[in-house]
């Protein structure tokens, strides 16, 4: 089996340590580098990576390291959007989190903060968890990190926009640390917009304390020539809520790992995702929901719309611990295959060790329903419009669940961008 050491990684260490000057961070990077050398690249023999070839991603990543691609993007040059009561804009470009206006006190970046102890603790916490070559690469290549940390009882109305962009091909390694204190709430919108052949390898740690609520929105767009990887680890304490609405339009390889631990009672997670690859793009969704606390709920609604020669994967595991009585869980994956060449592999799994639970799962895949098409056409609507209507209604059902009106509009506009709005 190949390991990253087979690749020319002589540049990697030097490059990694040159990115940011901080002894504690460079020590962490040295440890990470030593470990990475001993690791294997996940291969198709690993069940979790069965349908996704990681080799081209690793190759591209090392190629970009060797090139030492640094963007010429002038800090803040094209970032003109001003913050307001409703929106705060943060751009991740050129290896840095950039912003036009001053950030509110609950948002800190590694480069602009003197609160390094906090960063050190948070980055190290992750270190105790299971590592993969990709999380290690994120740590090695990171040159900045973002912490969003609410105060107790703080309800933030503004939407925090995190826009990931690049004007050249490069490694992009966003690292987000999000911590919600008791009784607080916040809304975050992560928008991946980098039309070059970048490797985005993001790592997000989320910790929701008692009674807190995080609404997370994410759109992955314009990645046709690049690779996109993301791992999110989410820990939910008593009565906390994590809601996700995401739309992934795909990359050469787009891989989304979401691990949610519902560790205390009454926590709730809702994951709503549309994935719509076209051409030869590939999207792989891997979810692990772990019910540990009692009376927690998890709802997963994953919808694929696959065109051309694209491929998709849904791997969902809902694990219910022996202690997790009164668990409620529903996992669905529905897929529209719009071409004979599009493929989907779906595998929803329930692992239940407590009898007092309500858990369901389902997966369906197929073409557009002929009877529905006939019904719409029989009212005078042409075939291509009728198909468009059916695709839109399939996506729209999920978008309509968004409660925040601004975000709902953003997703609706994205829907119309992908599937022409009917002009009537």
């Amino acid at each position: 089996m190949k390991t990253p050491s087979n690749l020319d990684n002589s540049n990697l260490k030097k490059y990694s340590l040159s990115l940011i000057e901080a002894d504690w961070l460079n020590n962490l990077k040295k440890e990470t580098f030593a470990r990475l050398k001993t690791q294997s690249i996940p291969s198709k023999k690993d069940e979790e990576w069965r349908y996704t070839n990681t080799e081209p991603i690793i190759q591209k990543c090392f190629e970009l390291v060797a090139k030492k691609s640094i963007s010429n993007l002038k800090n803040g040059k094209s970032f003109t959007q001003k913050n307001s009561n409703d929106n705060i804009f943060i751009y991740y470009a050129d290896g840095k989190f950039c912003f036009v206006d001053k950030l509110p006190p609950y948002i800190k970046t590694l480069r602009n903060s003197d609160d390094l102890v906090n960063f050190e603790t948070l980055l190290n916490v992750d270190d105790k968890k299971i590592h993969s070559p990709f999380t290690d690469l994120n740590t090695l290549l990171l040159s900045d990190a973002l912490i969003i940390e609410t105060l107790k009882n703080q309800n933030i109305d503004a939407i925090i926009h995190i826009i990931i962009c690049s004007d050249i091909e490069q490694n992009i390694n966003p690292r987000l640390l999000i911590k919600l204190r008791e009784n607080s709430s916040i809304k975050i919108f992560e928008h991946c917009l980098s039309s070059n052949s970048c490797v985005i390898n993001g790592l997000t740690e989320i910790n929701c304390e008692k009674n807190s609520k995080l609404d997370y929105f994410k759109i992955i767009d314009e990645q046709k020539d690049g690779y996109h990887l993301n791992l999110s680890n989410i820990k939910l304490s008593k009565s906390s809520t994590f809601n996700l609405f995401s739309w992934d339009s795909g990359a050469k390889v787009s891989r989304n790992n979401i691990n949610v631990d519902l560790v205390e009672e009454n926590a709730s997670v809702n994951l709503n995702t549309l994935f719509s690859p076209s051409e030869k793009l590939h999207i792989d969704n891997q979810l692990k929901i772990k019910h540990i606390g009692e009376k927690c709920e998890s709802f997963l609604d994953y919808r694929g719309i696959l065109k051309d020669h694209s491929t998709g994967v849904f791997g969902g595991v809902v694990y219910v611990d022996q202690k997790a009585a009164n668990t409620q869980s529903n996992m669905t994956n529905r897929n529209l295959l719009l071409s004979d060449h599009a493929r989907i592999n779906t595998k929803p799994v329930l692992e239940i060790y407590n009898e007092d639970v309500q858990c369901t799962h389902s997966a369906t895949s197929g073409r557009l329903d002929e009877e529905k098409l006939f019904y719409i056409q029989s009212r005078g609507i042409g075939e291509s419009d009728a198909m468009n209507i059916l695709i839109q209604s399939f996506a729209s059902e999920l978008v309509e669940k968004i409660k925040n009106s601004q975000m709902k509009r953003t997703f609706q506009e994205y829907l119309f961008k992908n599937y022409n709005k009917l002009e009537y």
Partner: protein
Amino acid sequence: MSKEKNLLSINNLKVSIAGKVIINDLNLRINHGEVHAIMGPNGSGKSTLAKTLAGHPECTIHEGSIKYLGKEIIDLSVEERASEGIFLGFQYPIEIPGLSNSVFLKTALNSQRKSKGDDAITAVDFLKELKDNAEIIGMDQSFLNRGVNEGFSGGEKKRNEILQMLMLKPKLSILDETDSGLDIDAMKTVANGLNSMRKKDSSFLLITHYDRLLSYIKPDFVHVLSKGQIIESGDSTLANQLEEKGYEWLIKTQ
């Protein structure tokens, strides 16, 4: 009255679905403003006839012709037939969650107008007409913004078919068992809708099992379909006879 005397003229029609012949040598003429009822036992081909007229792709036509306003329509697409004024009220209306009822209707209406070279209807006119028609068939306004037929009861779905019919104003409405699943009150409101269009010279082909609907909408002709053929035609009294004696009586005398 239009120049063409016959609105619809079906001659020697032979249709199969998945290789099985369902309709064989069927002949039928419908004039402007007439109401025809087609009755017959299960499996006699009633729904296939309805779907064939609307252009369902699974119905293969082997022989015969379907002339509508004097023009052969066998080669017309589903949407072209609709724009020409043929409407099919579905026996089992389809649910389309995520598409609102009113957006669907407006898109349909404007698609039809566009194909005729007419301008799109204004939002104000559309909403007014929609409200008026919803009132005629006793449909609550809240249904208009829900997903098409999403979570509607059987009766509500059928009312929604009639609402679509009233909005699209077809010349020929083929209603496939629109009466099934309706209670008496719903049937009366549906009949009101039909009768209001009948006054405006619209024609109807009503496919039904029972004569219940026919007591509210008196047909000009009643036909009995058996094994893909019309075996008996008569006036509205034929429906009453069928109700008394059943279909066996006719089929046996063949």
